[in-house]
């Protein structure tokens, strides 16, 4: 029983950063932007969070700084894809490489290449009084980092904003038919730009949660595909916040399964266990790629005639 509880609790905890980042990507994807640079944005957020927490002594201020820096970083992506109208995938790849190079350079300059990581303030577990003492349900759902609660609360809000408000309508139509939007006076470029910045906010939060919640240090390349998996979660979740939550939970479960099998010390080599999340991601993409809600204008820069 204990193992089942810990499996589900770990699933939720591991799903959170994927979900948080994916809730940002789902808006920029709906606006017609293929944001393959999320991985780099999360990496930048992870380092900025650690630096912020190290300097200010507070994990919350660290996350705030991470969000600020990541938004600036995502503005570079937005500038190249929306204003210069360059190829989104190539720019995204460039952003990932840029993030990798910058974080290594800055991390080594600040903390040295091989010394032990600095002591920083990080997010602790907040058990919700009362609810967390319910047997089984309590430890699974109400004994997490505060960011985990915030992430899951954000899901219905994002769902509401995307499908019930003017903002959501604008974002969706800009991705679906930019030309028509332009005709009726919706500012295509601005909407896309802002949706990228918004995905930057959440990617920064997700990245800094990984470096200050999952662990409390930064290592080079520590996102290890988390940004790409978040992108896959959006595709697998069929471009809705609710769907993204479900797909993030599937990916969280595959990670959780990996840890569980590792702990069981089976005969399966650990490398094959470490592959599980990546393999599940590939399988999930193959399942959903037909009949998807992918916007028609996805990946194409809008050029006014």
């Amino acid at each position, binding site marked *: 029983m204990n193992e089942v509880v810990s499996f589900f609790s770990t699933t939720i905890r591991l799903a959170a950063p994927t979900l948080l980042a994916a809730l940002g990507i789902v808006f920029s994807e709906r606006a017609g932007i*293929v944001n*393959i640079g999320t991985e780099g944005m999360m990496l930048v957020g992870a380092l900025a969070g650690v630096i912020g927490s190290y300097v200010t002594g507070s994990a919350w201020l660290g996350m705030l700084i991470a969000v600020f820096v990541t938004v600036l970083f995502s503005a*570079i992506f937005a500038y*190249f894809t*929306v*204003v*210069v*109208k*360059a*190829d*989104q*995938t*190539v*720019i995204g*790849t*460039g*952003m990932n*490489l*840029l993030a*990798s*190079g*910058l974080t*290594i*350079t*800055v991390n*080594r*300059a600040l903390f040295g290449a091989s010394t032990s990581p600095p002591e920083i303030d990080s997010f602790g577990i907040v058990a919700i009084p009362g609810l967390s003492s319910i047997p089984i349900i309590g430890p699974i759902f109400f004994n997490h980092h505060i960011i985990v609660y915030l992430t899951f609360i954000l899901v219905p809000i994002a769902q509401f904003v995307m499908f019930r408000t003017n903002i959501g309508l604008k974002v969706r139509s800009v991705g679906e038919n930019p030309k028509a939007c332009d005709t009726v006076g919706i*500012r*295509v*470029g*601005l909407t*896309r*730009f802002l949706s990228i910045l918004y995905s930057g906010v959440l990617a920064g939060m997700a990245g800094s949660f990984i470096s200050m919640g999952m662990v409390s240090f930064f290592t080079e390349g520590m996102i*290890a*595909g988390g940004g*790409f998996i978040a*992108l*896959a979660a959006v*595709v697998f979740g069929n471009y809705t916040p609710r769907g993204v939550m479900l797909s993030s939970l599937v990916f969280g479960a595959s990670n959780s399964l990996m840890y569980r099998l590792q702990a069981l010390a089976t005969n399966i*080599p650990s*490398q*094959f266990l*470490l*592959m599980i999340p*990546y*393999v599940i991601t*590939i399988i999930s*993409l*193959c399942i959903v*790629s*037909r009949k998807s809600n*992918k916007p028609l204008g*996805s*990946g*194409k*820069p*809008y*050029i*006014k*005639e």
Partner: protein
Amino acid sequence: MEGLSIKQRFQETLKSVYFPFVAIVVSLLFGSVVILATSSTSPLTAYGHMLKGAFGSIAAFDSTLIKAIPLIFTALSFSLARRSGIINLGAEGQFMMGALAATAVGVATPNLPAIIHLPATLLAGFLGGALFGLITGVLKVKFGASELIITIMLNYIAKELISYFVNGPLMDSASSSYPQSAPMEPSARLYKFIPGLNVHTGLLIALAFIFLYYFFLWKTTAGFDMRVVGFNPSAGAYAGMSIGRSTILALFLAGGLAGLGGCIEIIAVQGRLMMTSFAVPYGFTGIAVALLGNLNPLGVLFSGILFGGLSAGALRMEVMTRDVSSSVAVVIQALIILFIAGRQMFAFKRRYRYRPSSEKRKGKTVVDDATEDESPTVQATAGEGE
């Protein structure tokens, strides 16, 4: 270029050099900001060391060439796929799988004559990468899954596979617990061929494959089909070409090119397979090389040598300055990708008036403007929209 006057040819050449040149200069400028911010060394001093370490002497150029060889292969891999409308972000993994397959053949069969062993090893390297690329191709065609995330996921899977093999079946029994393969058999290795230089015969293989890349894409029917499908999928389909077949073939060949690069890196430079064999992101750097070289055979050669110099020079820069990290080179590579892909921002607007209708392509491919060097399409509208 047939039928152009000398003046037009000159202008064409100028145009093809202008954007790479500006992109490099601007990237170095931004790179110097990073150097200023993270070290107490002046950027000029740092770049001076870099230049010396890259092209300052015969020995420096020698190491530049050695570093250029794997990059040329990963760049050809990206270029070939891109020419057929696919973005291959999986060269990283295909490179590793090529290295893995080559190692398996290279250590497993002692006492073979080199004339059989070496070609078999090279073939294994090619096939290792090609079959890994084929996975993506088949998944893309069968299920319509986007190659972007799949190739990236396969990169991580390749990394775990390497880790498994060097810790398990391929682990060197002589070196006990260290995760590495046995050394490659002498009959499966490439050697230096110019007296006094360390550069190995892999350079000749790289040159041969640059030529093959050109010959295949521009002189064969399959290559022509591939370029048409990449440039305009609906036109290709209308002309009776199979997009699926072209996609699968492109990813097979692209994977093979990257795999061959990985194979040559192991049998010529590293000597055995290790976890640290892939510390340099050859696959992703290859993307920058391909873009800077405009997906052209000669362009890839020159930008490959340039990037080889960048990484050779970066090492010297780190050693000589002591506080400038060699990862600054990665920053510069990334910036070059951004400024080449966004080269429209450096275009003289008035010179490129055009009709945007050629821009609109039907079909939901993510890949637009795959071959935009053919016509300066996007440049004109930069900054005109929102």
